[in-house]
């Protein structure tokens, strides 16, 4: 109990609402080109369930709980580690054209457009 932060139903709903909104807004502007890494990245983030598994398994009192808990931690750890491995692998592959000047111009186009046109 000492490691838990109890919430009333409405406090929990507030947390859920804000978190859902944050997730929606953060993902909303991702270009389609990154959809696969994004999906496996968010997949990695729900791997945090492993922490819940550790918590539950440490206070398991019966053989049945220990058995289920073992698999919960096993699966959760797999979710987290695997999700990280594939996401970082995929993201490392994305690169701009080998012409750095061109790539830099592309990346900073919005900023460049905001400055005065005489800056050419």
């Amino acid at each position, binding site marked *: 109990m000492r*490691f*838990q*932060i109890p*919430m009333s139903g409405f406090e*929990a709903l507030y*947390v*859920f609402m804000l*978190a*859902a909104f944050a*997730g*929606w807004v*953060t*993902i909303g502007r*991702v*270009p*389609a*080109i*990154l959809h*696969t890494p*994004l*999906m*496996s*990245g*968010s*997949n990695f*983030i*729900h*791997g*945090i*369930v*492993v*922490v*819940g*598994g550790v*918590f539950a*398994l*440490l*206070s398991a*009192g019966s053989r049945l*709980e*220990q058995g*289920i808990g073992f698999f*919960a*931690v*096993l*699966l959760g*750890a*797999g*979710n*987290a*580690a*695997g*999700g*990280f491995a594939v*996401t970082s692998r995929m*993201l490392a592959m*994305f*690169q*701009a054209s080998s012409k750095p000047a061109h*790539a830099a111009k592309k990346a900073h186009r919005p900023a460049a457009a905001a400055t005065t046109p005489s800056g050419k």
Partner: protein
Amino acid sequence: MFTFLPPYVVFATDLVAAFLFLFGLKRMASPVTASSGISYAGVGMLAAVVVSFLYCFGVDPAARSQLGTNIVLVLLALLLGAGIAWWAGKKVAMTAMPQMVALYNGMGGGAAAGIAAMELFGGKTHGGRELSVTLLGALIGTVSLSGSCIAWAKLQGVIKKPLHIGGQQVINGAVMLAIVAVGGYVVFTVHGGAELATAMPGWIWVFFAGAFLFGLLMALPIGGADMPVLISVYNACTGLAVGLEGYVLKNPLLMIAGMVVGAAGLLLTELMAKAMNRSVAKVLFAHFGPAPAHKGGTIVGSLKPCQASDAGIFMRYAKSVIIVPGYGLAVSQGQQKLYEFVKLLQAAGVGVKFAIHPVAGRMPGQMDVLLAEAGVPYDMIFQLEDINPDFATTDVALVIGANDVVNPAARTDKSSPIYGMPILNADQAKKVYVIKRGDGKGYAGIVNALFYAPNCQMVYGDAQAVLVQMITAVRGLGAAPGGKAQK
């Protein structure tokens, strides 16, 4: 002494981890910063897992005698689970990424369901509200587990065909009703004063079995091209289940991380469904069904086969080429050869762009990842709305293993099942080459009028083999006079 310290260490670390997750996700929104984004999130995860061992200090007195065993079990499960998944994740081919992600989704769902099961069988949930939330999380997590297993089996090719059972919707509805009834019975009985752990285990097993069955039934009839939607649905489901179990465990980190992923997954699902012009509900519950009778309208023209070498040489002398990759490219693992061919064209002064349909492949963005793996810079890759106006002024559109996403019937034929779906306007290019293994129909089971159009020629064969022939043919021409050939 200092026994008051561990909880605060855990709370503070979890707070930082929650921040790092959101910050990392935010950085993942641009290809420039994405790589660092996952690293931030990874640091958060690592920190949260390490401090979770401090939970040892807060174990119930009842379970203290088991603590030694439990610590060993935790360590063993962590090392084993993380080790195997890490190894598999490093080794898996990029073309097999969709099934890998489906598998990891299922694992997360299974873990959430496992936590719920421990709470239920251990009788640790108190009150009707907590019990209901636990059961709901258990249901969603279990559905995600069994459904993801089916999705994996389909993508891996273990299950070849969508399975249609008569009265599918009725059966699914009945199973869901039964699950809700069992769950409601458990909640009300416990509310009436019964002891959860001793009086209810039988019904809890039934509840989990029902949820598992529902996941199987839900995923079995869904076909290959709808997989992007299914995978993002399970991603969202697992996130939601984790968030709900986080509430039960009174752990805000799980609540926040789970709900962020739940919302993100929902948004992605919506995007996918919109790209197919079908509602999410339609994809999940009203399938295309067994291949519909021929209703392609009147097709004029004929299929005109063409040699790979001729097509390759034609493109070598074109000014501009747009390439439309589809699932067929992934199946043949032809992405490296494709980029090799593209580099040859570029060396000869041909302008080359890639056009990606949002639902090409078996998971959102799969084609982008394959091209990235082959080394194609991401500024050569264009999305549907950005590239569509360019087709009309392009010499050649090269369609590789894609079908429904370039079917003009989606624009013109109101009776077509894909009518209204946004497509790539490959048919507007002056010349269209289609690399395809055979005359098979697309996923929607309809004839593609593009293949019969006067400006279209078919190059039959495995995409990779065809591309090798094209490369040989273009190399055979030697350096282009006046071109920007580098060799």
